[in-house]
């Protein structure tokens, strides 16, 4: 998604045709939870999508980090963010319950793998190229 999202945003989101909703899954256990929680904490400071991109692009580093919370906190140095507030948010686990509930809803909605995209009523399972997504988007346009 990270590869095709900028094109989708420029072509469809900025023109008012498309909105993209991000629903984080927690399929990889505690590390998934901390990564999603860090993104939510960045969202408190209007940096949700910037943090999500940082997590994706640094996934290798996060995977090998001794302390994922420290690694996530260090990533925020690349954002315009109040790091102390971010760290407080992380240690408080303030978004944890909401993330668990969102993951439960995703499972109830039949999401069993990743990634999954619902484009209006059309479900797409697995990664797709930009061209494939455009074909689907154009086909569901009202």
């Amino acid at each position: 998604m990270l590869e095709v999202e900028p094109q989708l945003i420029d072509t469809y989101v900025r023109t008012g045709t498309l909105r993209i909703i991000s629903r984080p899954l927690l399929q990889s256990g505690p590390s998934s939870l901390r990564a999603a929680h860090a993104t939510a904490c960045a969202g408190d400071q209007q940096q949700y999508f910037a943090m999500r991109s940082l997590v994706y692009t640094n996934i290798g580093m996060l995977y090998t980090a001794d302390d994922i919370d420290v690694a996530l906190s260090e990533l925020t140095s690349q954002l315009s963010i109040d790091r102390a507030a971010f760290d407080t948010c992380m240690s408080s686990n303030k978004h944890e319950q909401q993330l668990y509930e969102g993951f439960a809803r995703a499972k109830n909605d039949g999401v069993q793998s990743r990634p999954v995209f619902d484009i209006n009523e059309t479900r797409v399972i697995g990664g797709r190229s930009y061209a494939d997504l455009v074909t689907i988007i154009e086909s569901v346009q009202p």
Partner: protein
Amino acid sequence: MYKYIIWVCCCLGFLSACTPAAQSPSTALPTATTQREASPVIQTTTPIATLTPSRVPSDDTATVPSGPVDALASQTTEGYYQIGNADAPITMTDYSDFF
């Protein structure tokens, strides 16, 4: 005669120091490095990516401005983050694990 030899040696030394062909490969390297460092490739690439224009919209389409993606972000009533207009005709829900 002795003075003449000294004078010739001085001239030869001066000429060798001033002739580019006389530079050793090791002294020529910094010139090449300087040329690479002066290349504007990286500096020109970044602004182009930042200033990529959005598609020109039709008159009856609500639009959001170009700029950082989070400037387009908001939250749904369920608390999920979204990019774009809440009343856009197409909704793409991205279920992804961040790890």
